[in-house]
């Protein structure tokens, strides 16, 4: 396939996946506390967890989950993210954990912990 065909195919499929739910859910008048909406909200939150995991580790540990505990950089990333979560819940802020944890990770990289 040439470049434009690849781009066109992926673009069309991606746009359909973004837009079909907009068409479907417009026809259904669901209440915000209906089981279908709650199901989707839970699924979207689970997707977030999945995305956070993949952004940290990719698929490197899929075949051997126990290896997370032997990888120094993996443990450091895990600690940073858990600290970010605790800080976000404690300070009720998004900005503070973002700055604090990025600075902490940068310091750890400079000290050669990663």
């Amino acid at each position, binding site marked *: *396939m040439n*470049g*434009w065909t*690849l*781009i*066109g*195919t*992926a*673009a069309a*499929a*991606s*746009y359909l*996946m*973004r*837009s*079909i*739910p*907009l068409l*479907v*859910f*417009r026809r259904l*008048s669901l209440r*915000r506390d209906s089981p279908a*909406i709650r*199901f*989707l*909200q*839970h*699924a*979207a*939150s*689970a*997707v*977030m*967890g*999945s*995305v*956070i*995991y993949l*952004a*940290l580790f990719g698929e490197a*540990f*899929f075949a051997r*989950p126990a290896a*997370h505990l032997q990888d120094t*950089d993996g443990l450091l*990333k895990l600690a*940073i*993210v858990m600290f970010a*979560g605790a800080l*976000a*819940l404690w300070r*009720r802020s*998004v900005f503070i*954990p*973002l700055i604090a*944890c*990025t600075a902490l*990770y*940068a310091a750890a990289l400079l000290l050669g912990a990663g």
Partner: protein
Amino acid sequence: MNAQRVARKSFLQGCRDSLPVCLTFLFLFSSIGALASKAGFSLLQATAMTLTVHAAPLQALIVQQSDTLGVAALLVATVLVNFRFVIMSSVLAEQFQHISLGRSLLSAQLLSISTFTLSNRCSTGPGDAYAYYLGCGITTLGCAIAATAAGHLIGASPSAQLAQLVAIILPVHFTALACHAAGGNRALQATVAGFVLTPLIGGPLGSLHVLVVPLGIAALLCAMDARSQGDAS
């Protein structure tokens, strides 16, 4: 305050809130631009891909495997990699029911994991959630296109240590956002479960984890909701 002023304020708030995402996109999409240049894609093709596909993992796959990908393989990869858009778009469709169909379809292209996370967080606030979504989406997509073009023109990826540092920004930002997500404890439980189960399910099922993990967790938590409601009544 009239509706137009609220919308304008929410739009600008969305632009401001998406700045950490822009920082990550700057590095992420410049790498994709550089990869596209090496794989023989023109500047127009690289930027058009970011504008129309707007999904970094899928774009990386396309530029890295452009010689071997067939239509069927590309479609399967798109469904697997981008399935989360179906879930996110379904949630936003419920929130944006008051927006005309034309505007909804036009702005569908702005949907990304980042715009969804930011918009879903502010959906219960006092502002205009749709204007906020547009602010996030236009800022991040504009930044992604500019970074792709810059990466293509410069043709160099950031150094390994800088890339490592930048790679932590997105998960930390998303973690902080997840802790403030609408839906309280259940949303946080679903996020933690998604994090923990991804490698456990991804091992045996491979790419199918994209479908199985969110749908399985949602089904389980809905069953727990129903049970706790049953106990309460």
